[in-house]
């Protein structure tokens, strides 16, 4: 029934986002980009795509970081256009997308403060999608409790803090744990929000978020090898909304090395392929790269249905992946690593 009145409130934005999706670079674009010899060539080619004059309007010399920031700026412009036109519940949905960037920013600022970096130096590196006012003050806090009660209590992130409140002093390890805890709460909350929306939004978003949750669980496990994070500590950090919940997570908590993680993944056909030994001709792709590939696949599926919010999430994620691709190619071009240039992840084949 929600489909009946969907277009009344969100039809314009859905149309907009589908139009913007048509501007996502195609295989031929990537092929042409990969042939470039300098960044100027890339700029020339990007001019013929939807990016248009994005890169040519600056006077400075082209660098990879400039490309990166311009791409990011572009994404933020598009997102803020969507957000400012959105009505509830889409506006809440879009806000949820920004929360993950906020979490990343908070953790980055904390680690920055721990390393005695100046806030002004760290701030520009924060993702603008996750910017919020008292962000710069994060460095004042000494413990997560302080962080919560003093700074984040009236930001949207407060709702994720219920489990993360502790009085241990913040160090780098603690910051990572804080990130994981926040992400867990965030993913679970987002998941239940999408579930409550129901309809096609639930059908498209839940698999994506479940995948995201499972990916975090795997990554936490793999990264914890060699640190003093015990299995029990780990299991607190696993988001419980994925497909791995509950048996897979228990198994993961007990895993001691890479082989055991692989054994867990073998039980789940969707994740089995990620841990399979790489075939020699496919190039050596990292675990992270394969997860990204899988994420892209899942996100492209969202465009097959209509009247749902998944397209917004997917568009932002795909665009982010596209920026990563362009930056990767730009890096390869500047460092003359032509052999690795094809390791980008094409989006629409």
């Amino acid at each position: 029934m929600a489909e009946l009145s969907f277009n009344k409130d969100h039809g314009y934005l859905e149309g907009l986002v589908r139009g913007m999706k048509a501007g996502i670079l195609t295989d031929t674009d990537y092929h042409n980009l990969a042939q470039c010899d300098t960044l100027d060539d890339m700029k020339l080619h990007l001019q013929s795509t939807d990016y248009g004059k994005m890169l040519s309007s600056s006077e400075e010399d082209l660098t990879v970081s400039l490309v990166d920031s311009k791409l990011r700026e572009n994404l933020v412009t598009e997102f803020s256009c969507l957000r400012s036109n959105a009505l509830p519940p889409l506006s809440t949905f879009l806000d949820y997308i920004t929360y993950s960037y906020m979490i990343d920013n908070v953790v980055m600022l904390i680690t920055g403060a721990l390393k005695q970096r100046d806030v002004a130096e760290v701030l520009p590196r924060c993702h603008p999608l996750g910017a919020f006012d008292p962000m710069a003050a994060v460095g004042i806090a000494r413990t997560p409790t302080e962080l919560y009660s003093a700074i984040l209590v009236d930001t949207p992130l407060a709702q994720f803090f219920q489990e993360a409140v502790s009085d241990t002093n913040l160090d780098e390890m603690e910051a990572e744990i804080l990130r994981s805890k926040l992400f867990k709460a965030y993913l679970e909350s987002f998941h239940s929000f999408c579930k409550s929306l129901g309809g096609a939004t639930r059908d498209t978003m839940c698999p994506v978020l479940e995948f995201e949750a499972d990916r975090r669980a795997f990554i936490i496990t793999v990264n914890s090898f060699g640190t003093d994070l015990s299995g029990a500590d780990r299991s607190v950090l696993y988001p419980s909304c994925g497909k791995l919940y509950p048996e897979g997570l228990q198994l993961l908590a007990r895993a001691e090395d890479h082989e055991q993680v692989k054994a867990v993944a073998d039980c789940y056909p969707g994740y089995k392929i990620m841990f399979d030994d790489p075939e020699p001709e496919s190039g050596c792709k990292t675990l992270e790269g394969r997860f990204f590939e899988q994420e892209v696949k899942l996100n492209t599926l969202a465009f097959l249905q209509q009247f749902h919010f998944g397209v917004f999430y997917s568009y932002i994620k795909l665009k982010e992946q596209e920026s990563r691709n362009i930056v990767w190619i730009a890096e390869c071009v500047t460092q003359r690593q032509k052999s690795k240039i094809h390791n980008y992840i094409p989006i629409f084949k």
Partner: protein
Amino acid sequence: MCSLLRGEEMCLAQLFLQSGSAYDCISELGELGLVEFRDLNPSVTTFQRKHVNEIKKCEEMERILGYLLREVKKADISLPERDVNPVAPLPKHIMSIMEQLQRLEVELGEVTRNKDKLQRNLLELTEYTHMLRITRTFVQRSVEREPLQAQYEEFPFLEKDTMLEYSSMQRLGAKLGFISGLIQRTKIQAFERMLWRVCKGYTILSYAEVEEYLEDPDTGEPSKRVVFLISYWGDQIGQKVKKICDCYHCHVYPYPSSNEERNDVVEGLRTRIQDLHTVLHRTEDYLKQVLMKASESVYTWVIQVKKMKAIYYILNLCSLDVTNKCLIAEVWCPVDDIPTLQRALEEGSRKSGSTVPSFNIVDAYGVGNYREVNPAPFTIITFPFLFAVMFGDLGHGAIMALFALWMVLYENNRKLKNTRNEIWNTFFEGRYIILMMGLFSIYTGLIYNDCFSKSLNIFGSGWSVKAMFTEGVWKIADIRGNRFLTLDPNVTGVFTGPYPLGIDPIWNLASNRLTFLNSYKMKMSVILGIIHMSFGVILSTYNHLHFKKKYNLYLVFLPELLFLLCLFGYLAFMIIYKWLVFTAKDSRLAPSILIHFINMFLMQGDGMQPLYPGQTGLQKFLVVIAVLSVPVLLLGKPVYLYWLHNGSNRIGMYRGYERVRRNSEEELYLMRAHDMEEGSDHSDLSTSGERPTEEFDFGDEFLHQAIHTIEYCLGCVSNTASYLRLWALSLAHAQLSEVLWAMVMRVGLRMDTTLGVLFLVPVFCLFAVLTVSILLVMEGLSAFLHALRLHWVEFQNKFYSGTGVKLCPFSFSLLPSSFEHDCLL
């Protein structure tokens, strides 16, 4: 005339340009705008082409120009958009332009940076003075509060307690500190809350708003600021407070410890602000000077750079010769213009503006096939005519014509031409056709004798009421007793003869006016429709003849024309015959054409009074011919082509022998043309190795012809009916204007007191507004639409396929000329 009727003959030419002079040649061709370039290296990506560096340079210049234009616009200097058309600069001059531009950019950048810095400085100083002024009131307020505290001296131990705390604080080495500054008004609430939470109440915050709007240096928008003063205990808290201030982007200024210091600072600030103001003014003046200088030549530069870029794009389309000494370009070019092209390449500076006539109303449907008959020249007349048949009103037509005339007279007005209003542009582009439509409407309005739903009695009506009395048919009592009386044209003197032009004005008074006009307009639209369609069919012969398909003439055109004329042409004949033969005297005997026409198909009607002797026989003959032409149309062409294809071997041999004897090439060419005329097969030609065989598929051909036949035969019926829209729309227009007159104007005219004159003014306003908005604009658009449909569907499907490709020549004049159109701004 030939080039008007058909598109220009085109040829594919190869240009060999010396690499040294290629640039100039292309520049010349661009000014000329005759030829369309083909891409000779489509496989090469954009950044691998030859002149990519030059294009990059052009883009760099465009960027600087865009920057210049933005700055000029920001400074409110008007851009001189003169009608100059500078030629593309020589490649060697590019560097000098580039240098000039770069120098300007650097200079401008420096000045604006300085200006920004000064403005920021000024803002800081003003903020500081505001802060000092406002914080003084805070202090004064606390001074005022001191006497209040005195009242509480009855509770000494409370007072003592605070004293104690204060002293203990002092003992602990904690100092009372102040931080003061300005913050955005929207942020003060969050700021206060944060301060409270982080410092757990060890701070006192007092704040007040600045009354003036201060300009935000980043966005340039004026915004309200709040001055705050925080007093805190202890260094640690001070650190935190400072950090919080940082994260809320507060502008913090040192807080003077004493009143004397404050006064000194205020004094110092005032002088500095004055100094800054003068410096800022100087900088702005200088900036304006620089921009003025730049704005003089910026227009020329923009055009030059655009032309240059276009030339390099074209050069990128050309391919290099093997020897690398000349460039090869392939162009589509009208054959007639080849001499011009050569002249342009040889000499350089000749200009010619030859264009193929095209008509947007036809082109919107489809661009004609190569060398197909172009309906545009006929449409120029028929379109406004059919429009006017539906829009027939002298007054409305005159208004429309005057409006269009105004547009035509002022067409060179820059303001009219360069507007960005899309709806206005649509009208403006069509000003000539609107003028024609208006003039034709005046004509049909005269014929209908309709002017704002009233009739004009110019020549005096041919009917006389007086005669009815003199002949004694009517008595005075008849007029008293009856509401309606019928004039009898058979009484001598009542009807003296037809009105010289159009409908007699007396019909405007008649109660059966509608019946009379309906019958007239309906028949007229059928006749017009049949003429229009027959004309379309006849035009198709030009195509058949031109494409050397003579068999189409006999096997397609002839049956089509016969079918149309035998059935519907005969209908038109009957209508005219009835008009001519039956007069007022024997009008009671006049038969119904509809019944006769139906009987014609049923092959009966012996029981009826014939229109003329031998009618039944003629009708049977016509129906038989029409029915017989259908199978000819259906089978003739495919069977003939099949026969040609199968019998080709025999005939081909025979012709081949003949050809051996004449081997001069010109004769061969003539022969081929001769063969084509006779519908010769293509395999024959292919034996000479110059033309590939065209695949022949009988099934395909038959299917196409079957579809065409069905479409045509059914189309004749439905298209004839479709022309009745002429009548319907014309009726609707006349009735609407009559309703408007009766409901609005007549109300005003009925009042006969002096007040009526005053009342007439608003009534006339309403009448005028409704006339223009409903009758002219809305009705005009609908009549336009229907006229368009009659041309596209009913007329053009008889002969026009419209699947051609338009030539889009490389021409500088097609580059966007105004600043708004390009993305520089």
